[in-house]
């Protein structure tokens, strides 16, 4: 394991500290417990948006704290959801009285820890709504399982719900638009190599030189199945097909196409994937009205990518286009 780190146990603390130093104009970083708050929080009259999860997915979530997106982010240990004693003060810090929305990726740990924090916050008089993100079509969705994971769609939920909060939407309205994004977004990912969790020191799974994992999540967990290496167009089809069919995208639809790098894949390769995905969608009569290509929700240094498709309506498009000013996503400001 070769990493640009000091003590493996200090990785999150030191990284978050560096993040705070680099973006002191946008965020305030609290240590022990760790959480990251928008510089001017709480914004009077505005619904607060809090997200968080295990670290190792940077720029998610800290990179999305700022105007038009999150009010706070709560980083857990690497691939481990944060704890209520981090989520609670973050929630209190961004509550202006208009209430707080928790954006939670659907993992048992994230759900339970945010649930506890929400209860505690409510006990302190803060109204909390939770938007659960579960967009990963690689996972079976059933009442009798943990359900689908939250992956790439999370970034889009945070941006669009963030814009709704910024324009002054009510607590319920912000939560509703977050839910609407989640209902209209699907993702699927592939790993070409595994990542290594710093405290574990060995790769999360073993892949042969000519094997890839289809349907991986963002925590270095293995995927649904393993297949021999294919070319970019073939892999793209394997990811895009289930996304498109599960979402039921049809000719005439407008979509946002998001090709996300898992952290160790060059941007140039993501554009090769984007090219194929855009061609396939065009062939189906689907209009790619907006796009996002890059490392936005990663899995440490894993090589691979995920494809996310969001079916847009006019309001979501408008909110996507609205100004955003965060360390990792910025436009219109």
């Amino acid at each position: 394991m070769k990493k640009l780190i000091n003590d493996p146990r200090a990785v999150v603390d030191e990284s978050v500290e560096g993040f705070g130093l680099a973006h002191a104009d946008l965020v305030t970083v609290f240590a022990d417990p760790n959480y990251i708050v928008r510089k001017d929080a709480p914004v009077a009259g505005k619904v607060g948006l809090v997200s968080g999860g295990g670290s190792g997915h940077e720029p998610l979530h800290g990179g999305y704290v700022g105007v038009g997106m999150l009010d706070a982010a709560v980083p857990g240990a690497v691939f481990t959801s944060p704890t209520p004693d981090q989520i609670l003060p973050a929630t209190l810090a961004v509550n202006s009285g208009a209430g707080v929305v928790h954006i939670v990726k659907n993992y048992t740990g994230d759900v339970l820890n945010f649930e506890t924090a929400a209860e505690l916050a409510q006990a302190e008089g803060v109204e909390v709504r939770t938007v659960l993100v579960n967009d990963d079509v690689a996972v079976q969705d059933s009442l009798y399982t943990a359900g689908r994971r939250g992956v790439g769609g999370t970034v889009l939920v945070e941006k669009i719900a963030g814009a709704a909060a910024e324009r002054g939407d009510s607590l319920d309205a912000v939560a509703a638009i977050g839910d609407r994004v989640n209902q209209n977004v699907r993702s699927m990912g592939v790993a070409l190599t595994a990542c290594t969790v710093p405290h574990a020191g060995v790769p999360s799974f073993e892949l042969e030189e000519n094997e890839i994992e289809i349907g991986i999540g963002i925590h270095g967990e293995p995927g649904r199945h393993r297949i021999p290496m294919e070319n970019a167009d073939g892999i793209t089809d394997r990811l895009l097909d289930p996304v498109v069919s599960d979402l039921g995208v049809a000719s005439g639809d407008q979509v946002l196409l998001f090709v996300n790098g898992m952290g160790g894949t060059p941007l140039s390769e993501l554009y090769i994937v984007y090219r194929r995905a855009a061609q396939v969608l065009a062939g189906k009569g689907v209009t790619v009205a907006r796009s996002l290509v890059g490392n936005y929700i990663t899995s440490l240094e894993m090589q691979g990518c995920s494809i996310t498709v969001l079916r847009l309506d006019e309001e979501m498009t408008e909110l996507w286009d609205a100004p955003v000013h965060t360390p990792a996503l910025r436009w219109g400001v």
Partner: protein
Amino acid sequence: MGLDVNWAVRWLTRSAQAMADHRVELIDLDRPIGDSDHGENMDRGFRAVMDKLAESPPETPAAALKLTAMTLMSKVGGAAGPLYGTAFLRASTALGDLADVDAATLVAALRAARDGIVARGKAETGDKTMVDAWTPAVEAAAAAAGDGGDGDVHTVLLAAAEAAEAGAVSTDPMLARKGRASYLGERSIGHRDPGAVSSALILRAAAGAAE
């Protein structure tokens, strides 16, 4: 002999030692069907418990368990943090302010812990989670305590630990339906659940502390 606060502290100390000793093993169990962090999470949590115990020594068994609950809740994270946090919190409540815990109360506390895990995690027996260690442990403890609940506490804890260990082994052939392993579907079969193993370690520590 009942179980007093010294037993509780010995239990937590032995648990912390077990998590440190089995840290890598628990990480390795979490790798193929999870995200390689269970051992790190539990070790971090119980090291924090040791710090807290040193800072503010508890006066009753219930206080020791409550301190443990709060610390695990705030230091472990992931699925295990809230689940173990709830387990210790419910067990603490079940103990009330007793200075000495008898077999009947012990069984009630173990049952409260298990029920807490089920209430939070919604897992059933056979879902390949820590519940598969706790449920047989509670049943074995109840049997060992006898109908009148007047059995020997050490015997009760030994029965619980052994049943939990067997329960952990029993997760090997299960197909996971809760937690992170459920994402793997069929591929989760043939692996032991890390949370069931850490649960067995904790119950074995409880028995050891009562020797």
